[in-house]
């Protein structure tokens, strides 16, 4: 990709074409939420204008058409991550996917205790003496559900620490992941550090220990080619709104043999086979985990977003964004008083950079940049333990996507260079 192609891409994103505080918008907050191309907006609109109906029920024409596009969307997303159709579950977002999984695992313990379900459930369910392992760089969404799972089950939560450069202490990982580990959950790419973790290496450690391996793909699925089979993870989650789709839709991927034996989290309509007044039997995945009327139009829109990314080419998107990330870090490092979190310029990172400005709070940095039409994220980015480890409470983060040019990065850098003088730091 080059700037000329990005300028053409930008024509697909109406929201980017506006002035903010009198200056052309520079949107560098896609790590928080991304913008939608016209094709995605139209996919959702077309569904409501032509096909809206409840899926999986009703014999009428619209219901059949709605079911068809809804399930086609599932296949599109399964293909997008190299998974099978049955292994692709709709959620509201990644956070819900992780909570769903953590509750299915504690329900597994409750079922096993009463002799319900597959024999293997007893092995999957964490209990006292077992361990759940995460990392020190996790987003709260991939930390707190595991804290609560440990609380509910009596298991112990442990974590792989990071070094001063932000990288996981892989030299310690082998001593932390062991026979007691039931779940190993970690992020593919850090939303703060920009680091891409060694997924295969971690997955191998987890599987050698007999643990379930859970991948937070929120910052990878939108930005680089993702194949859950090649990475050999048991579960993966991501959110649609970070990959050109609307809010309210996300995905939980799980290996089929695991999904089909795990108890559901939410129960109700659409996920059952036989119901009596006493009890119910449940469908296999994916319906097993999709109680109630689903987010149909959002699923259709997410498939349109995946198609947009696939047609553009995730290899090319990743390469372009990695270049923008390098440009950000090299530029930031040359500004006095700026400390970039994570890898230095020249080291691998995705297209984002979080940084501290000496003597100026991140909130003030964000306000200053906004006055120049530049949108960034400020705060702890839902990673308080990571910030605490690095001796900070809040940072500023710029995160790029396929619609950002090198000019966007340069305007951002030029503005950052003026921050400390304005606030007399």
């Amino acid at each position, binding site marked *: 990709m080059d700037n000329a192609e990005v300028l053409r891409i930008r024509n697909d994103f109406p929201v980017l074409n506006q002035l903010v505080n009198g200056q052309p918008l520079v949107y560098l907050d896609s790590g928080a939420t991304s913008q939608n191309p016209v094709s995605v907006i139209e996919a959702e609109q077309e569904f409501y204008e032509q096909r809206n109906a409840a899926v999986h029920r009703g014999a009428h024409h619209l219901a059949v058409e709605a079911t068809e596009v809804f399930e086609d969307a599932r296949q599109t997303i399964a293909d997008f991550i190299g998974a099978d159709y049955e292994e692709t579950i709709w959620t509201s977002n990644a956070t819900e996917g992780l909570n769903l999984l953590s509750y299915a695992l504690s329900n597994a313990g409750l079922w096993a205790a009463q002799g319900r379900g597959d024999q293997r459930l007893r092995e999957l369910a964490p209990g006292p003496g077992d361990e759940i392992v995460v990392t020190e760089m996790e987003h709260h969404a991939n930390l707190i559900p595991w804290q609560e799972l440990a609380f509910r089950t009596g298991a112990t939560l442990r974590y792989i620490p990071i070094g001063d450069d932000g990288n996981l202490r892989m030299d310690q990982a082998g001593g932390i992941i062991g026979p007691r580990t039931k779940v190993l959950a970690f992020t593919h790419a850090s939303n703060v550090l920009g680091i891409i973790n060694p997924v295969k290496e971690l997955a191998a450690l987890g599987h050698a220990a007999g643990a379930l391996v859970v991948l937070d793909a929120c910052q990878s699925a939108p930005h680089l080619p993702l194949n859950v089979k090649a990475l050999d993870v048991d579960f993966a989650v991501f959110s649609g709104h970070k990959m050109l789709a609307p809010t309210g839709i996300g995905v939980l991927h799980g290996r089929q043999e695991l999904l089909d034996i795990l108890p559901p989290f939410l129960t109700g309509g659409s996920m059952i086979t036989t119901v009596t007044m006493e009890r119910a039997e449940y469908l296999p995945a994916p319906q097993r985990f999709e109680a109630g009327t689903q987010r149909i139009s959002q699923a259709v829109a997410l498939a349109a977003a995946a198609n947009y990314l696939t047609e553009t080419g995730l290899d090319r998107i990743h390469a372009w964004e990695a270049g923008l990330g390098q440009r950000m870090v090299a530029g930031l490092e040359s500004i006095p008083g700026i400390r970039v979190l994570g890898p230095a310029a020249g080291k691998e990172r995705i297209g984002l950079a979080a940084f501290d400005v000496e003597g*100026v*709070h*991140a*909130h*003030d940095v964000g*306000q*200053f940049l906004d*006055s120049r039409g530049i949108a960034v994220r*400020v*705060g*702890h980015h839902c990673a308080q333990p990571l910030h605490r480890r690095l001796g900070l*409470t*809040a940072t500023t983060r710029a995160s790029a996507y396929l619609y950002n040019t090198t000019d966007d990065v340069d305007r951002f850098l030029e503005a950052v260079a003026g921050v400390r003088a*304005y*606030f*007399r730091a």
Partner: protein
Amino acid sequence: MSLDQLYQQIILDHSKARHGSGLAATEAPQGTSTGQSHQLNPVCGDEVTLRLAVQDGKVAQVAWDGAGCSISMASASVLSDLAEGMTVAELHDVIDSFREVLRSRGKVHADPELLGDAAAFEGVARYAARVKCAMISWVAAEDALNQAA
């Protein structure tokens, strides 16, 4: 609205001067009744612990520790200057007035006679995301005042 209207000179000055900061190193005057309040804004991490000492119905001392953006730190500094010497009732009136201005989205103008330097925060009211930054020490002061008085 320009950035300079938000970050008025008084605010930038106070964000550096931080009058009243240094709670840990400051003893409350003898014979005073004290209240102390810790406030945290989880959105941005702004944090203030403020102690207020009252004697004979008047604010004898304000001391605080905090970390946060320039608006929150300047606001605590201005509050400290303003509150000392006021009666409990006067400080309540000032806090009520400050809150009304800040929550008005720019519709209510600050009364400089009543609010003094705190009137400089009027511009913050137009930035919904920053209102809590300006309010945090004032919420702490109100809580501490209720304890002390």
